[in-house]
């Protein structure tokens, strides 16, 4: 666990970046620090590994005061990932990843082996090992940056806007991979971002900071969306929070309707329905067609692809989106293997939403109330 106790950072020019901040980041969880620029989130992060020294207050790592530890040793035990990856241009990808184990004097062959494994784990082809950072794209560099931070298997990781310098598609891939990795590794992570969507997606606990380094609110993402503590947080978490909160609500048993389907290659002519769902031989939905307009055997290019598909075991947001986006207004629901189980209408999803329990509302005095 990482604990801040009344931590203040005042810079020589008089600006107070962080003002008597107290917070706890639980072990094995992702704690996101989020806020507008100037809120002191990066300063707070950098005070943990003492890249910035607090003016007053203490930061403890599993009960040990970081101010009493030797700086270089403290840092070698903490993974550090920064916005532009900060890879060493003169070293190959493999040598970059091996940096901390080599600093710690670990065995060279063992380190190489482990670094190669890590590259694969973060989704990089082993062929990249011999390349130099300048030969990689921004997203690839950031993957190397994550692998490098993990190389010595530190229990704690500090990540300072690691995914904000890449395009949205790559960012989403990196986020998903990061969550899978964290699912396996269970590190204690402090993650800084200015993007509330990223904070809600990645955080087990989200800490919203205000300009001047004041703690505005600290809560689980679902609770944060349901209970913004003041106007600042309400404004910061944004307008779609009611809809986004559905991401944290499991889908209850929905009244699914059996859907008339046809296989790819069959003809839809004569089917008595406005829209008909086309499936493959494993009953995986492929798209909708209109029998009145589709002449002859159904081909791929005739499919309407606007509708999303929701998993029955997924969050309610998926089910509602599936119903709203479907051209037939019937949302496609599949099981975990991707096979069709039925369709649902938007009003049915809404009824389910209205009837669902809202555990995040249960105890409004408990800021860290767990999400459903």
């Amino acid at each position, binding site marked *: 666990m990482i604990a801040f106790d009344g931590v203040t950072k005042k810079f020589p020019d008089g600006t107070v970046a962080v003002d008597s901040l107290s917070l706890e980041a639980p072990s094995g969880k992702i704690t996101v620090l989020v806020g507008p620029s100037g809120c002191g989130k990066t300063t707070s992060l950098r005070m943990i590994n003492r*890249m910035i020294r607090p003016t007053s207050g203490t930061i403890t790592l599993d009960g040990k005061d970081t101010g009493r530890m030797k700086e270089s040793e403290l840092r070698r035990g903490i993974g550090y990932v920064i*916005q*532009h*990856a900060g890879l060493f*241009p003169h070293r190959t990808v493999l040598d970059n990843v091996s940096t901390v184990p080599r600093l710690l004097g670990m065995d060279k062959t063992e380190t190489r082996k482990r670094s190669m494994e890590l590259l694969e784990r973060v989704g990089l082809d082993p062929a990249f090992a*011999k390349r*130099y950072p300048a030969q990689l794209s921004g*997203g*690839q560099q950031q993957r190397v940056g994550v692998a490098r931070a993990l190389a010595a298997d530190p229990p704690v990781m500090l990540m300072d806007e690691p995914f904000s*310098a890449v395009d949205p598609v790559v960012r989403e891939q990196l986020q998903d991979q990061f969550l899978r990795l964290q699912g396996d590794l269970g590190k204690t992570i402090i993650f800084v971002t200015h993007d509330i969507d990223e904070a809600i997606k990645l955080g087990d606990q989200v800490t919203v900071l205000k300009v001047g380094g004041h703690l505005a609110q600290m809560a689980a993402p679902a609770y944060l969306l349901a209970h913004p503590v003041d106007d600042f947080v309400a404004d910061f978490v944004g307008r779609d929070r009611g809809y986004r909160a559905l991401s944290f609500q499991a889908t209850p048993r929905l009244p699914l309707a059996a859907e008339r389907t046809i296989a790819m290659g069959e003809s839809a002519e004569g089917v008595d329905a406005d829209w008909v769902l086309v499936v493959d031989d494993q009953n995986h939905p492929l798209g909708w067609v209109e029998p009145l307009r589709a002449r002859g055997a159904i081909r791929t290019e005739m499919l309407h692809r606007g509708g999303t598909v929701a998993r029955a075991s997924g969050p309610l947001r998926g089910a509602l989106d599936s119903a709203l986006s479907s051209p037939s207004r019937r949302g496609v629901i599949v099981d975990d293997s991707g096979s069709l189980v039925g369709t649902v209408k938007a009003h049915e999803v809404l009824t389910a939403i209205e009837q669902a329990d809202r555990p995040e509302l249960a105890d409004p005095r408990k800021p860290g109330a767990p999400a459903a």
Partner: protein
Amino acid sequence: MISGLIDWLTDSANWSGSDGVVARTVEHLWYSGISLFVACLIAIPLGLAIGHTGRGRFFVVNLAGAARAIPSLGLLYVMVLWLFPKLVGDSAFLVPSLIVLIVLAIPPLMAGAYAGVEGVDPAARDAAKGMGMTGGQVLAKVEVPNALPLIFSGFRSATLQVIATATLAAVAGTGGLGRFLIDGQKVRDYPQMASGALLVAVLALVVDLLLAVVQRYAVSPGLTGRGSGRPAEGGGVRRSSRRSNTPLDVEIVSSQRTVDSQHT
């Protein structure tokens, strides 16, 4: 004129002996080598320290500017007048010349080391520190390897400048290829003078070529774009491409030209 030059250079009598081309070239390289060595000992640690700590930047910038204004010949006379009575034997001629060469070599060497370290990607430096490298490790493992292209650039400028200026040592009564210019002028032997000038230029170019080869092998392929595999398709954080062309680098080269033109 040209045929006189060819005659002089092809006359084997001019190449052998203690005052022949071979011996004079060795002397010339010796003066240049020792001056560069001493200048490196002073300038490179200082340049690295300034780049690493960020303190004393004004010092390098002003020094590099002021150095352009130093008249080499004038400095040589001052050194000779000042030191000649204090020294004995050959060193009375040699030491003043070496001091001039060292003084000339320091600014480009220091500017190269300083600019090289300062130009290191701040994110790489931050990451190095954040991963637990000590200040010395950051310098040795990250800053110096990344500064090498500019350190080499400064060293090559200094080398060209020193080899060209070592010619002046002959004015103070020492050896080196400058002897052909000074001695030739005394007896109005223009082919000898022209040959001396040509030999200095060729020597400078050959040494620079050798240094270019050394640089090629000393600098990481990650910095020069010679690495294996395809280049990135964009979007990468590439900073190495501007590395060899910082304003200071250009300044080093141009100061080299002005000093050259003072005595050629």
